């Protein structure tokens, strides 16, 4: 079939490819603006600045940041899977329950089977992926709205989880006859029990000899792997296509059924991966673990710029959304804001963070603000009015045609 090159393509293929590869600057440009533009990071930057201004040293030190991110890591991992589902215009409400059952399975495997973590983690991922498969099959084959499917799955899985555990939480810190942790149990701790790091011996950049807190590392690895999957692989393209226009995707040769099933499986797989982390973090698997995590995960995804209508979003965006949520919590907590005030402030700041990220912010806020904006921009930029020409990422079409939901 390769002999069937059209004249048009052949003419084009050769010339414009750069000989030596792209420069660092070009590469950076390619990575940073995954959110559509640098504007996407403003919300995060503001939260960090707020933390530094109010609690400087206490906020901006490795331990605090590790703690903050570590507490959110399992939800951040769920959010990565959720991003995939949302990109195909679906939604997965069951990820919290899936994390719960995976955490329970991990604890039971540790306690009753005395497995090691290299056995436990993959098994949990399989469990998650199987439930994800059921979600995907019901959505893609029975064509039920994913909201309904996964809402039902949320309950079903929680019921199974609670049956498995007999409604009692299962501790993972097992003591042997000498009053010490069993080796497997001690090993399990590195999956996330606070203070238990991995690679503690090595002199690592940034973190020094303290080592790396596994949940943070796991989150970073998941983010990197799935960002690459989305931006570099064929499958990633297909995910965007299915969410953007399913008919067009199908007619372009995308196996839309497969893609939809796959994203739910991956979301389940990641929930399964996050389960043991959650169990280690609490040193126990609670039958209710992960309840309402799905809302945090979805919030991270949409704050990160994804559209629930599908086709728009990125994993890096989700990471930014996750960081905004967790650091905001941290900053408010460090400042000893009362719990009720926190609820209010957090809600308002989330709105603010999203508003700030809007590429057409100035337009949306009406002519008066626009005039102000123009004034500022005229001072800052050289040639006015060519804002987007050079921007390397596609600015999503917005005002007249787009629907915001």
């Amino acid at each position: 079939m390769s002999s069937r090159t059209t004249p048009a393509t052949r003419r084009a293929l050769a010339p414009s490819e750069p000989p030596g590869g792209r420069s660092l600057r070009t590469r950076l440009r390619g990575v940073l603006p995954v959110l559509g533009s640098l504007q996407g990071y403003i919300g995060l930057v503001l939260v960090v600045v707020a933390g530094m201004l109010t609690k400087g040293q206490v906020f901006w030190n490795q331990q605090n940041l590790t703690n903050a991110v570590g507490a959110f890591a399992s939800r951040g991992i769920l959010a990565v899977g959720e991003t995939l589902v949302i990109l195909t215009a679906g939604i997965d409400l069951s990820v919290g329950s899936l994390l719960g059952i995976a955490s329970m399975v991990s604890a039971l495997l540790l306690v009753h089977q005395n497995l090691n973590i290299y056995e436990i983690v993959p098994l949990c991922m399989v469990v998650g992926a199987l439930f994800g498969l059921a979600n995907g099959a019901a959505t893609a084959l029975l064509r039920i709205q994913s909201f309904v499917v996964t809402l039902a799955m949320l309950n079903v899985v929680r019921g199974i989880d609670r049956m498995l555990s007999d409604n009692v939480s299962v501790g993972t810190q097992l003591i042997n006859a000498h009053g010490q942790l069993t080796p497997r149990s001690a090993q399990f701790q590195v999956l996330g029990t606070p203070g238990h790091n991995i690679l503690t011996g090595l002199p690592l950049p940034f973190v020094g000899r303290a080592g790396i807190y596994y949940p943070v590392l796991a989150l970073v690895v998941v983010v990197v792997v799935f960002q690459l999957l989305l931006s570099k692989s064929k499958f990633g393209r297909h995910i965007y296509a299915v969410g953007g226009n399913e008919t067009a995707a199908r007619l372009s040769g995308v196996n839309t059924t497969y893609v939809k099933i796959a994203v739910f499986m991956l979301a389940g797989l990641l929930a399964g991966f996050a389960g043991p982390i959650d169990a280690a973090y609490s040193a126990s698997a609670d039958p209710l673990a992960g309840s309402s995590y799905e809302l945090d995960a979805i919030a991270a995804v949409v704050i990160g710029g994804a559209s629930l209508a599908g086709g728009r979003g990125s994993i890096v965006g989700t990471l930014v959304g996750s960081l905004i949520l967790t650091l905001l919590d941290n900053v408010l907590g460090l400042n000893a804001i009362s719990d009720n005030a926190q609820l209010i402030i957090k809600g308002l700041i989330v709105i603010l963070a999203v508003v700030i990220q809007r590429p057409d912010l100035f337009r949306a806020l009406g002519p008066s603000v626009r005039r102000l904006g123009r004034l500022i921009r005229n001072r800052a930029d050289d040639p006015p009015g060519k804002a987007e020409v050079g921007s390397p990422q596609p600015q999503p079409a917005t005002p007249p045609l787009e629907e915001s939901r």
Partner: protein
Amino acid sequence: MAVGREIHETQPDNAGGSSAPAAPGPGRVILAMNAITKTFPGVRALSGVDLTVRAGEVAAILGENGAGKSTLMNILAGVFSDYGGDIALDGVPVAIHSPKTAQHLGIAMIHQELNLVPDMSIVDNIFLGREPRTPRGTIDRKTMDEQATRLLAEVGLALPPRRPVRQCRVAEQQLIEVAKALSASLRVLVMDEPTSALADAEVRRLFTVIRRLAGQGVGIVYISHRLEELDEIADSVTVLRDGAYIGRREMAGTTRAELISMMVGRPLDELFPRSDSPAGPGEEVIRVEDLDLAGDRREGRAALHGVRLVARAGEIVGLAGLMGAGRSETLEAIYGAFPRRAVHGSVRLRGRRYQPRSPRHAIRNGIALVAEDRKAQSLVLTNSVRFNASLAALGRFMRRGTVSAARERAAVSGMVTDLRIKTPGLNTAVGNLSGGNQQKVVLAKCLLTEPSLILMDEPTRGIDVGAKAEIYQLMTELAGRGSAIVMVSSELPELLAMCDRIVVLCEGRVTAEFRRGEATQEAILDAAMDRQAVLGVDPAAPSRAPARREVSDE
């Protein structure tokens, strides 16, 4: 209808003081747009464009894809509220901020893309935004139904008004849009490529409507890339190029060549480059026999009955027919777009038995489809040109398991150059391109899969003359290199000039086949309207014909 009610109470001629060259026209100036400018981020879509329309005049706007025609008219219809320049209606300056204001001023627009609510009924769509109400404040369904039936009859549709629009064919939807525009008290009616989805018979019907409206003193703005239509319907032509005003001509006494050179900026001689294929047809690429398709009203899908079709390497085969004749369905059935169980018959691809399974399978077998509805079937509008163009051919750009951005960019930018796609960059969202350029992106997507059999459903829909010539050139080239092309078109001249053979469908059946040279417009139309031949028997009977054969290779 209150159409044109107020015309005779308003000011005399020329009250608008238009700056456009005053020329003898049918009536007083009803609409004057002066020095209109409009910029989108990074694109200057219009720079100082004038347009004058007189009462009862059909004023055509002509320009290449992306020249700014739709933008100009969208401004008039209130879609864009931030623009420069003045608009005067009947000599009174008006500020149009929203579609609602435009509506109140008696301006109606039929947009280039269909704008109906698929899940609502025809009647609800027609009256959307101006529902009549009973004294009790509820919507007046009775009046709506009555008026809708009348309006539909006016545009030549005999559809039940309560049918959901989702169940209507594209062409029907286009005519529903026209009916919708009629229900306002009209002063100016803008039609942005209303005929791009219509076949000849429907175009006639539309022209009748246009003439009647013009007779009632409505000013009509007509945008089309089909120049032969302008000869017939337009009184004057305003030409735009790259967002700039080029000139205005009275249609009478202006040659087509002159218009084309105004539009393209250079003379363009050979529109249809194709002559008889010198080498003669090669081996058979596809042979379709006894193709049956179960119709599905819910999806607006026509049934096919025993369609047979052969295309050889190097050949361009045309499919002609009226709307709903089943041309699109034939292509889509071959492409595997329908559930397997709905399709029966035998298909041979390059001599081998072929079971249309899925579009993916089709692409793998070297088949490509340029689908009929680019917005619904072909493009991810919010994503970039690069994304869309490469979507079907990603496998070609793989390197070490990932899509190589460099290869992809090179291939797509090659296509952009070759097809002269007017876009600010490869990363521009396709939704921001002009309609014609969107169509070219669809073509690029198909060509990048390197197909040996290309199924084209209205490939030049909404494409300007210059680009059409390029696409014809390209088709000729592709055929010359051994591809087989099956093309559906509602433009008979295009079919006659481009095709080696023309197969005519009517009501899902092949009613005639012509070789190049044998075919004439009249013969094709006769065959296309050969309903008697098809419907002479009980229309339901053949659909249950036992001759159905299951294609199976499972």
